[in-house]
């Protein structure tokens, strides 16, 4: 194993996953390409969603790729930070809303 789990150079080798299973990889990359095409959402909106999700799944490769992609698509730095706050709000909200479950349980158990 390498000295670190993540190596920036590995991002460029993403396509290599097709070496061991080309059929599924082709399907995935075709799908991936289509997902990011402009639709009802603009390419920039999709890039910002990807950036927010990248932070949620905490994937360094994705953060690297979609920081760059968002800039290329003309996003502002403020817009990029706002996107991450959306991800953070959902994450923290998801934690806190479970507080209701905790309260329900605690109330049921308590006299």
């Amino acid at each position: 194993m390498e000295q670190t789990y993540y190596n920036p150079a590995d991002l460029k080798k993403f396509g290599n996953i097709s070496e061991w299973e080309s059929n599924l990889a082709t399907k995935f990359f075709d799908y991936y390409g289509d997902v990011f095409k402009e639709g009802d959402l603009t390419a920039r909106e999709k890039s910002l969603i990807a950036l927010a999700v990248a932070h949620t799944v905490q994937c360094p490769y994705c953060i690297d790729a979609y920081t760059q992609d968002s800039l290329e698509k003309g996003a502002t730095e403020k817009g990029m930070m706002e996107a991450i706050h959306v991800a953070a709000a959902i994450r923290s909200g998801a934690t806190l809303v479970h507080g209701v479950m905790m309260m329900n349980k605690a109330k049921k158990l308590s006299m």
Partner: protein
Amino acid sequence: MIKSLHARQHQLANQKSQVEILESGIFADGTLPTFKQKIEPIGFFPLRPTKLEIFQVNIGYMCNQVCKHCHVDAGPDRTEIMTKETMQQCLAVLKQSGIKTLDITGGAPEMNPDFRWFVSEAHRLGVEEIIIRSNLTIITANPKYHDLPEFFRENNVRICSSLPFYSAGKTDRQRGEGVFKDSIAGLQMLNKVGYGKPDSNLILDLVYNPVGAFLPGDQKQLERDFKKELKEHFGIDFNSLLTITNIPISRFLDFLIESGNYDEYMEKLINAFNPAAVAGVMCRNTISIDWQGFMYDCDFNQMLGLKLEEKVGQHISTFNIDALENREVIISQHCFACTAGAGSSCQGATA
């Protein structure tokens, strides 16, 4: 305001040092392919012109701005200025050759004392299209320039102006504090005389280039964003947005090296190499003239001191259109910027 590399006697002010960087390191040790290695297999080496359509004249490196990415290394401290005699030679060539487009650039070309004379003469001569690459802020820089929009209109010139973003933050980071505000004022003055208005024939194009070490996005989508934002916030109209990829020379090369982005940027350009963009590179229909009358394949080669191949004549005084249309274009690794993605040229995307 920062000083030019030239004034700082920076290593990259030396043209040979720049070419050396582009020819060595990752390109010499085989890490990355050279431009020649990429265009040879697709039948484009040697790279030859198609038809000479654009006569681009750089009438001086003096500028009122010092942009961080400037490939000219222009600024107030640059004193290289084209003389009226050389302009006369250029006009003679335009007259005799019938080349369609005269493209005037700088620095801030308006700062050349013979600028207005040159433009008026070209207009009188009947040159089909005259493009002026104006930085916008020059219009409000000094009262003597306030009537430039009117002068442009009278000579029916097409205006091409850099505006890297529709907000102050990014624009000012690249072009200097307060540049966005002054650019907006300049654009509003141009609109006022009819430039860029939907019902007008006066063309006002904006030039977008990335504020950093990344590629420009889709030209049409960015144009849509720029139109919406500039109209909504400042009431500004313009015709087209032209996307240009930053060329790894001069101040942008300095930025790439200083910020540790050079290797990755070059690799990015190569990964985005688009064979379809090779056919449309501007050196195939353009000739670039410097302030002393020397000729180059493009403004970028001019800044690298890479003159035309010797046998076709290197000075405006020996201009021979047949020889020029049969020349071999001088290439190096900076050329990858013009073939990346949707392609890049002074006229925007090419593929």
